């Protein structure tokens, strides 16, 4: 197209007058209210949409109990059309364990940030993985404590500037990031471990596949499923909103590397002749 400003715009104020079917609504059916106060460009609502749509696609809404940690994403804990149990910062995996042990046919999913899961709650998720609880732990990893205003967590990468690593995370002073998906994948009780992101359509599609696979792992009773999702936090990263997707790719994505680290269901599939 030679001159975009001269291209007539398609009206988008009302549904089309020509016969058409709705293929995606504003708000996913399992989110009650779409409006929220999270920052422009925040990756967390994107991840939550992908999660609840995976639950919906697998027809699990009437079996699911989501256990929420504490962070910006807690804005959704009273805003979903699935049952929710609110836990404390870092403590969702043990709470999820109690639920799953009492209701083994339910689908139990934790939703936690990196500050919650890797700083405060590192032992909780590792023990749940070691025990092989058939729950699904979802980590929204933006490398900062977002809700408190942008402070260093256990996943903050070297050189990343936060309010508690003002000149950039320095190994001598602040140590080095924990790559949690890699740690979890080394535990025998982990059945599915993946790391993905929401900073582009392609990454989001991989995230959605990982979430579906994680839920399938739980349905098969194949022990702990874990999905780490890198999300944008322009506010916590002190970058322009439109710079955040690239910042994620260059800074977080190069350290917390995407991929499927473990998939026991795939191993069993491969074993079937």
């Amino acid at each position, binding site marked *: 197209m030679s001159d975009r400003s001269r291209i007539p715009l*398609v009206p*988008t104020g009302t549904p089309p007058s020509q*016969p058409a079917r709705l293929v*995606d609504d*504003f708000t996913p059916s399992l989110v009650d209210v779409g409006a929220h106060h999270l920052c422009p460009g925040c990756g967390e609502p994107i991840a939550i949409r992908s999660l609840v749509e995976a639950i919906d696609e697998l027809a699990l809404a009437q079996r699911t109990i989501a256990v929420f940690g504490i962070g910006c994403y807690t804005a959704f804990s009273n805003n979903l059309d699935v049952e929710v149990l609110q836990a404390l910062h870092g403590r969702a995996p043990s709470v999820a364990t109690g639920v799953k042990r009492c209701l083994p046919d339910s689908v139990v999913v934790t939703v936690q940030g990196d500050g919650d899961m890797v700083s405060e709650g590192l032992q909780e998720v590792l023990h749940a993985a070691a025990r092989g609880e058939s729950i699904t732990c979802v980590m929204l990893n933006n490398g900062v404590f977002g809700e408190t205003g942008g402070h260093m967590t256990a996943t903050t990468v070297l050189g990343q500037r936060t309010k508690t690593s003002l000149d950039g995370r320095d190994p001598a002073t602040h140590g080095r990031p924990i790559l949690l998906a890699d740690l979890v994948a080394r535990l025998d009780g982990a059945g599915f471990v993946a790391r993905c992101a929401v900073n582009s359509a392609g990454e989001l599609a991989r995230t959605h596949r990982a979430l579906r696979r994680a839920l399938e792992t739980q349905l098969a009773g194949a022990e702990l499923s874990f999905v780490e999702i890198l999300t944008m936090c322009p506010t916590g990263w002190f970058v322009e909103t439109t710079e955040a997707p690239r910042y994620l790719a260059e800074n977080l994505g190069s350290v917390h590397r995407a991929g499927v680290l473990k998939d026991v269901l795939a191993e069993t599939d491969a074993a079937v002749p």
Partner: protein
Amino acid sequence: MLTRGTLVIDVEACKGCELCIDACPPRVLTMGTDVNARGYRFPVLAPGCTGCKACSQICPDFVFQVYKYETPLELSTRREDPS
């Protein structure tokens, strides 16, 4: 331009993050010059939408409804010259 789909855009919900712009495979979304009540620019749609839902999936603020036409439309990409 063959247009298989279209959108309803809730412009007041948009926070101007522009994730949809790069996500759109046929690149039919651009940021407009108008701003909404909160002061954010919002996307506008050109012909050629395929109804792929990349925008609605990646939008953090649930701004998009995506429709797929039963029969694809042929939409002009040339603005009519009033003279």
